[in-house]
């Protein structure tokens, strides 16, 4: 297994300097990676390419025939009235989901990393919402936000405030689904941060403690920098996950009120493909969404790699 110069492992920096690869090492890498790459290739990229091809067609999903229409679907996307609103919805949802669940998740992880009585149970409770399927959560939150039977309405009424109708006002509906999503997703962020906190260098914390560094300073100077890779990782995955949210929207608002009040791009893809039966246009939206995500993620990753080198 050893290479000519006696090493087989490389830290990322070393790898760039080395010109020659060890055959054994390349073979091992292929063996380790190939099964996964093949699975992703067949079941994710092949459909993606299929989808890109479809975006140049007009295809009623029930029909055996599709017509090649060139860029017409893309032109339609640029010209359509609802495009801007759906993009905005998507961006708002994503922004709130990323910042909201990351801030809360980190806070909870720091809190429950401490030696507190009953933290094991509370950890499970924080994680519990993440376990429930999106569809069930959508139903459960009817009991929270329903303007007549909901808990929010009930609690507000006790202090003499009239609750807004969350289902009827686009802004409130958006608030409702993002709050629900953050509630569900905080458990995910929490677990990843908690794992990272467990694996961090306790010695550094202790050193800071001995130095008498204040808590807030310790957090900014010692803890947060150690968590930076995790934070990057979470910002990427939470963003990508939040953009794939379908169940919660479908159960709670079906993309409404007023048609597109809470429609995000993924919901639009579904709506166009299966309800309006315009699979070609649906594929176009999906392709555009993929491209946008690709650009954002690549920028994030590039920033992360640069940060790592610095």
């Amino acid at each position, binding site marked *: 297994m050893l290479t000519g110069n006696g090493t087989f492992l490389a830290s990322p920096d070393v790898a760039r300097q080395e010109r020659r690869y060890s055959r054994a090492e390349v073979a091992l890498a292929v063996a380790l990676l190939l099964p996964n790459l093949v699975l992703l290739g067949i079941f994710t990229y092949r459909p993606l390419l299929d989808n890109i091809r479809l975006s140049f067609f007009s295809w009623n999903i029930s029909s055996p025939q599709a017509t090649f229409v060139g860029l017409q679907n893309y032109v339609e996307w640029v010209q359509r009235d609802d495009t801007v609103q759906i993009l905005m919805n998507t961006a708002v949802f994503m922004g709130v989901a990323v910042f909201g669940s990351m801030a809360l998740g980190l806070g909870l992880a720091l809190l429950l990393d401490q030696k507190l009585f009953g933290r094991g149970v509370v950890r499970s409770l924080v994680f519990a919402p993440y376990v429930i399927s999106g569809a069930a959560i959508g139903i459960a939150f009817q*009991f929270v936000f329903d303007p007549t039977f909901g808990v929010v309405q009930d609690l507000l009424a006790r202090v003499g405030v009239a609750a807004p109708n969350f289902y009827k006002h686009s802004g409130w509906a958006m608030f409702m689904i993002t709050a629900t999503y953050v509630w569900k997703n905080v458990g995910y962020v929490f677990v990843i941060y908690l794992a990272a906190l467990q694996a961090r260098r306790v010695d550094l914390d202790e050193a800071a403690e001995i130095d008498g560094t204040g808590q807030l300073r310790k957090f900014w100077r010692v803890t947060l920098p150690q968590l930076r890779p995790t934070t990057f990782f979470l910002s990427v995955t939470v963003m990508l996950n939040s953009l794939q949210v379908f169940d919660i929207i479908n159960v709670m608002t079906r993309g409404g009120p007023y048609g597109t009040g809470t429609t995000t791009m993924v919901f639009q893809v579904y709506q166009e493909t299966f309800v309006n039966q315009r699979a070609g246009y649906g594929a176009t939206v999906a392709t555009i969404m993929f491209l946008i995500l690709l650009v954002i993620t690549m920028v994030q990753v590039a920033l992360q790699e640069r940060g790592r080198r610095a």
Partner: protein
Amino acid sequence: MNNDAGTHRHGGDRRRLRGAIAYLAMLVVVATVVIPLYFVLITSLKPRPDIYTQPVMWFPDEIIPDSYTTVFTAVPFWEYLRNSVFITAVLTVVQVVLGVLSAYALVFLRFPGRHAAFLFILASLMVPKEITVISNFALVAQLGWTNSFAGIIVPLAGVAFGAYLLRNHFMSLPGEVIEAARMDGTPPMKMLWRVVLPMSWPTVAAFTIITIVTEWNQYLWPFLIASNEKVAPLPVGLTLLQQAEGLTNWGPVMAGTVVTMLPILVAFLLLQKQMIKGLTAGAVKG
């Protein structure tokens, strides 16, 4: 959160105050998280007319197990549970193994196209599931895999999330330890098992629990592939409780939700301990 003060002293008062704030924060968290969960639970135990009332009925006069009886008798619950356990177990094992191996290769092995391979894995996270189903359904149908476990499992087996998570973690491992082992001439697979993984259990445990949750809750794909209780998992099977035009009886639906989440919460409690154990193991090594 320890952001109450930037002081340089550790007065006993401050410490006690911090403790109080921490417990208070914990209480708020518990309340926010628990109220919706409580309504899921209590709805599953209410008699039907008590589910929708005004004002909201926080504490029902009567608690009945009927909704649970419905879940266990009106649909083939145990078959769905068996399928769920099988599908989730296989997918979790496969994904964790593939994830660890992929991440290990991406971080510690030198080979041409390493960065491209990473981007290939990462970018697959950006493909919405909704657009893959039609194409994959066609392929699975051609293979004759509809209504089979293979048809459900194989297309879901590729792992991008975990490979990314572990790659990220592996790259943050202390260079000294890796370097030392490398100097000793440890062979790569042994290195993975003896050096890298022992420092990574909390992350592997987190990856495992998230994989379990994800696969346990898979809906769209198993729904398209499964015809009946032969292979359908719980989330697909339990929609049978919901098929009514106009009025759904939420009691059994909520009972179904409760029994679906319980096994995963147990798994989390177990893995959570693993995450803490990982801390001590890692600390010793480090």
